[in-house]
């Protein structure tokens, strides 16, 4: 039975995930949130960040502010939830005169924000080769239409966490994963085999993207700019995922799990495998609970004969249109996305860096073994469809995917509906190509 401590932690997680109703209200009222710089220097560059990244970069912001007199950084801690942060940014942008100069953006927002005309190109400020020193996968989703729109700060991809005390090695494919999980459950070593994110939200789109690719299928055809969900591989992928729940390898509650729900259950020691982002590594290490020191990480696996991969979930800084401080903002972007700050973020938070030089830094690799796995995972990144209509087609996939998991639809029907509804959205929009 889960301990009281783990319950407390889940409650903390639930409270931490408060979408920003209050924050939105404050924003509408023009109230300012906690800021790291109160003084009014020559120029203050204001940034909106999700709370965890605002906390993680706080030392770097302080360092910058101490070193520079002419430009200061003021960070607004936004909501924890990715989409709610976008809602907050959207509210401020719709009001016209955004109080922010920079926005720390999820990779999946970029095309939409560009189409809305909310971003300023960065190449004139940072140079055409700004991304040149980065690993190839970290460059994805930042530049299109001949412009650079975003400088990535982290190169995170989803990973597979496994229990080193229960198995000698991680699974090599999905078949092994299910078999190993089932065997451990049968032996009574764990209650559940595999936890992941099945709630109707963006996290489920990432999981479905990974499973589709892991079985040789795909969500999006970048050549035609259309969804491609009616393949035999997609059927097989959806069947595998459904069977995880139907066969009891994953708990039925996984259909309502977000990242934190999966992590909290994994921390109790009742689970063999977990799909999550790199942030979980640091939390598992700090937990000092039943699984501390007994967890390994590996790239997500695919079906036998297919390459697995994790969704690219990078965060990056973009310059908002209308910012009167582009030069100061460019200096801040250079600093916060630079190698010094990213090295500190690896050490303090375990975030995957984007610079090639950091992956080649032997001492860093030695002190942070997770980097080796992250570097492998970045060889096969899965990029979510790069289209301004991404939010719509992701919403369709989430609804149908969740219907599949809650047993209200068969895989065939869920896929057919997702394909048909996505086609309708794309056709109605007259969009068939990438931005």
């Amino acid at each position, binding site marked *: *039975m*889960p301990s009281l401590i*783990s*319950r407390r932690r*889940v*409650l903390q997680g*639930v*409270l931490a995930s*408060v*979408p920003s*109703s*209050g924050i939105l209200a404050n924003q509408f009222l023009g109230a300012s949130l906690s800021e790291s710089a109160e003084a009014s220097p020559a120029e203050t560059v204001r940034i909106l960040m999700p709370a965890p990244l605002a906390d993680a970069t706080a030392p770097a912001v302080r360092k910058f502010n101490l070193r520079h007199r002419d430009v200061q950084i003021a960070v607004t801690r936004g909501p924890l939830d990715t*989409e709610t942060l*976008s*809602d907050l940014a*959207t*509210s401020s942008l719709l009001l016209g005169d955004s109080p922010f100069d920079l926005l720390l953006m999820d990779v999946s927002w970029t095309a*939409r924000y560009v*189409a*809305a*005309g909310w971003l300023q190109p960065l190449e004139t400020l940072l140079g055409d080769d700004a991304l040149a020193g980065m690993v190839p996968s970290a460059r994805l989703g930042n530049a299109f239409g001949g412009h650079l729109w975003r400088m990535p700060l982290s190169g995170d991809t989803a990973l597979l966490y496994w229990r080193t005390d229960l198995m000698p090695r991680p699974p090599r494919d999905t078949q092994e994963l299910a078999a190993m999980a089932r065997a451990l459950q049968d032996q009574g070593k764990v209650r559940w085999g595999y936890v992941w994110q099945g*709630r*109707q*939200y963006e996290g489920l789109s990432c999981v479905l993207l990974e499973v589709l690719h892991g079985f040789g299928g795909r969500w999006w055809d970048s050549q035609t700019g259309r969804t491609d969900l009616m393949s035999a591989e997609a059927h097989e992928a959806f069947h595998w995922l459904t069977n995880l729940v139907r066969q009891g390898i994953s*708990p*039925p*509650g996984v*259909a*309502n799990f977000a990242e934190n*729900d999966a992590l*909290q*259950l994994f921390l109790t020691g009742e689970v063999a495998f977990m799909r999550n982002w790199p942030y979980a590594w640091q939390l598992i290490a700090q937990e000092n609970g039943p699984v501390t020191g007994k967890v390994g990480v590996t790239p997500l696996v695919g079906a036998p004969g297919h390459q697995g991969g994790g969704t690219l979930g990078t965060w990056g800084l973009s310059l908002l249109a209308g910012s009167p401080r582009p030069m100061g903002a460019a200096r801040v972007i250079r600093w916060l996305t630079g190698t010094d700050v990213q090295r500190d973020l690896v050490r303090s938070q375990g975030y995957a860096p984007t610079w090639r030089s950091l992956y080649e830094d032997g001492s860093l690799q030695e002190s942070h073994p997770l980097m080796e796995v992250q570097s492998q995972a970045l060889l096969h990144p899965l990029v979510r469809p790069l289209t*301004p*209509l991404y*939010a*719509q087609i992701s*919403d369709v996939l989430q*609804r*149908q995917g*969740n*219907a599949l*998991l*809650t047993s*209200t*639809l068969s895989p065939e029907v869920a896929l057919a509906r997702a394909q048909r509804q996505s086609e309708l959205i794309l056709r109605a*929009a*007259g*969009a068939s190509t990438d931005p």
Partner: protein
Amino acid sequence: MSADLLPLLWMAPALLLLGLVFLWPWVHYCWLSFHASSLLTGLATLPNGGANWQRLLQDGRFWQDALQTVRFAGVSVGLELGLGLLIALLLHRPSRGRGLLRALVLIPWALPGTVMALGWRWILNDPHGPLNALIQSLGRSPFPFLTSPSTTWAFTVLADVWKTTPFVAIILLAGLQSIPRDLEEALRLEGAGHWTVLRRLQWPLLTPYVSLALLFRLAQAFGVFDLIQLLTGGGPAGSTESLASYAYLQAMRFLDFGYSATLMLATFLMVLVLSLLWLGGMRLVGARR
């Protein structure tokens, strides 16, 4: 100044405020619902005839959400009226500590909706929530309350009923207290019991208060957003999505403001029609009496 204009002058500040916060947004929504304003227009607002309304009629998700919203509003408001009346009758009876009880009853209503929704999400958490802890302490497996459309819907209604029944109870209690006590005493002297007093005296005189509570609650239930957004996110599989959630999604996530305005107007029209039907019905009943 003529006597006819003077009242208008006194009411002018209130009318101006109403115009600003109600009429202007309503007129703006009407105007926007006949325009395309989305990513495809670069967020520019361009006239599109009645395309948004045509789309609404053919949008299966709108009709599904409309049905879900009507069902949610009908069941939750119905339960709130029944339970609210029961609580109001109990609180109306002279008893020790009645003042304290009246204050206690209001606590759920006083809680912010977001806090209440998060509280329920925690209570229903699988497997760590208190409800599942209770189930597990009885030797049973934890139950995934928020993964089945039917249980999720039932708990969404329960959460709403828990929060807003006190509001209905207080309105009905105010109604009960406005009934002259000598009428009740006279009826009781003639041998009437509790049921007869309720049916023949209290209920007919409570009707305006019931109407008031119902209209307030109907409008709120049709616009339910925070509870859905935080407790279920519209899931599982969109089965608890309300019209307000859908409109929010269209505006904030899809950046389709023309269609979002159309959805909100359609919701408004539905509430308006239902309210007029109720008021018309009440008038008919009153005329028969």
